[in-house]
């Protein structure tokens, strides 16, 4: 039986994630790619709870549960400390949700990226503050319901383009990934592992609880979101060289994707048409960047 991913499991069962949690799939794949000589810095996020309470853990790698704003810099500190005590091999990873990356953690992330500190920063994006009960973050997409963007005033600002922000820092490696494409995710994380400096990986991770989607749809949503270009799979090296990993011959419309999630069911046709327009614009711009044309 040929398995398409490394066989070793560094994440164990018994953890506290909801049924169908995309964030857990993301962790499982990332650890398969990195191996046991890995240290994680996890700020406040779902994974602070998923890992299990004191005195337990569900991972076979060490974790530093750090303060909310500090994922990136805690990882840089751990890396510096490990190097100074003679461990130059352990890969240090900041593992944060969208809240700890796009919002409260962005200052520390920007600082780390500007200095090109030698860590891998992985953001698993479930598009809201899920751990505290689904409040909006700047990663929440336009149109979504959250508890702080109720239906009568749904999120009316676009999702912050974190990849563009990271590209502006000119770091060696940036990649987007989705748990619907685990082989691609593992390949990218392995590539990141072999690179020095600040590496940023943005992983799309559905949350059935917060998105009001069916738990069994998690992987399906993670494929659809790539195929309709809402979350394309691409890499950026040194902030300049864009590589598209999955060319979309047949870009799918976003309707079917939106329909599978309760957080979008209030949208009118007009809303959806607007959103489709924005996705199309963004996709064209990405294609231009891939072709090497400057952003107009």
């Amino acid at each position, binding site marked *: 039986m040929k398995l398409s991913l490394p066989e070793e499991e560094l994440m164990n069962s018994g953890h506290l994630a909801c049924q169908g949690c995309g964030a857990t799939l993301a962790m499982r794949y990332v650890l398969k790619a990195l191996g046991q000589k890995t240290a994680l810095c996890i700020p406040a996020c779902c994974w602070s709870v998923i*890992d299990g*309470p004191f005195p337990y853990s569900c991972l076979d790698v*060490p974790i*530093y549960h750090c303060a909310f704003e500090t994922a990136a810099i805690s990882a840089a500190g*751990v890396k*510096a400390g*490990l190097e100074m*005590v003679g461990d130059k091999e352990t890969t240090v990873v900041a593992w944060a949700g969208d809240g700890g990356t796009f919002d409260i953690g962005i200052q520390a992330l920007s600082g780390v990226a500007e200095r090109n500190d030698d860590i891998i920063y992985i953001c698993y994006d479930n598009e809201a503050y899920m751990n505290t009960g689904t409040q909006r973050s700047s990663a929440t997409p336009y149109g979504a319901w959250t508890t702080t963007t109720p239906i009568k005033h749904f999120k009316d600002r676009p999702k912050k383009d974190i990849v563009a922000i990271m590209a502006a820092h000119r770091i060696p490696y940036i990649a987007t990934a989705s748990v619907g494409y685990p082989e691609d995710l593992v390949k990218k994380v392995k590539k990141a592992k072999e690179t020095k400096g600040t590496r940023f990986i943005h992983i799309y991770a559905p949350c059935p609880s917060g998105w009001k989607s069916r738990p069994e749809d998690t992987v399906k949503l993670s494929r659809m979101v790539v195929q309709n270009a809402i979350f394309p799979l691409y890499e950026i090296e040194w902030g300049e060289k864009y590589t598209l990993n999955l060319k979309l011959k047949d870009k799918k419309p976003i309707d079917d994707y939106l329909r599978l999630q309760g957080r979008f069911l209030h949208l009118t046709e007009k809303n959806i048409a607007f959103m489709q327009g924005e996705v199309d614009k963004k996709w064209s711009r990405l294609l231009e960047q891939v072709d090497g044309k400057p952003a107009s």
Partner: protein
Amino acid sequence: MPDKMHLHGRGGKMRKVIMGNHALSFGAMLARVQVISAYPITPQTQVVELLSEMCADKTLDAEFIKVESEHSAMAACLGASLAGARTFTATSAQGLTLMHELLHWASGGRLPVVMGNINRSMAPGWSIWTDQNDSLSQRDTGWIQYYCSSNQEVVDTVIQAFKVSEKLLIPSMVVLDAFTLSHTYEVVDLPEQKKVDEYLPPFKPPIRLTPDEPHAFGGLTSPDHYFELRYKLQKDMEKAPALIEETGKEYEKIFGRYLGLVDDYCCHDADLILITSGTMGSTARVAVDELRQQDVKAGNLRIKVFRPFPFEKVRNIVKGAEKIAVVDRNISYGHHGIFYQEVKSSLYGQDGSPPVFGFIAGLGGRDITPSTFKEIAQHALEKEKPDEEIIWIGVKQ
């Protein structure tokens, strides 16, 4: 701009004229810190500038992470400390308070970071001059706090702070007054590196973050467990006074200088004891001399270690006095001066405790001179006991 003044050989006794901030840098260098992470703030900048030079020319083998805020500075130190490295940072006022969340993290996480803090007044309005509110408002965060009044004391305290912190796994801060100590040049005997290495061996924590023995540090802790973990922190903090004295005596054996928990000047037969801290504690000595010349049996008890508070020492030293005058360069709004509160609480229930006068002086860097102490002494001598709980010295009323 610091020149290569720190490169004058490492062996043998060395006396240098250095400012208080550089005393912190030299202390950290001699302690062979391994990871430094800091953000500039007046009046701390010289600490990190000199450490930057020392790292750049390899006088000090350390990684210096030049972060984008003090919150990140402490966060980096915590990560490095957890990985098993000896860490140091320095800050002041707004920077210290920005780190507040992480000060709790350091003590709760049992991470022995040592930090220099330059006492500077809290904004608003912007002030770069000295008072003690910034560090004293962190008194509940579980850090050992040392208050220095000379540059020699600063160098010696930093080195000893590492030893005590690493033994107890409790972080500590070494506090200097802005400008009156941080920028004042004094002669300092810099300890020999070789001897410091004997006194302070490399940091070897019992547990550290490593894939070789994976743990999850600081996870969700329920009411079933949190209490005991914090009980242990307090119990270990209670060992600090004795440990500080013990390591202080070891230090004295090697380097000839003893620090201890307090500095007792003429208190043994004093009728009026001034209780002070920081640089005003050395100004108070001058005042004590002058008072003695006028036949007033004055004494000065300068408190060097504020946390853990030296209850026993204070009780024993003030036992025989007729009056105590605590001088606070700080205030806890809605209450009193902080040293005043702590002194009073250590005397509560003790038979024959003298009345305690609480003076507030020098906030925002207003100068505290021997005349200030004269006024304080006069006030205390004139009254049987205080008729106000806060006596403001120097406020234009």
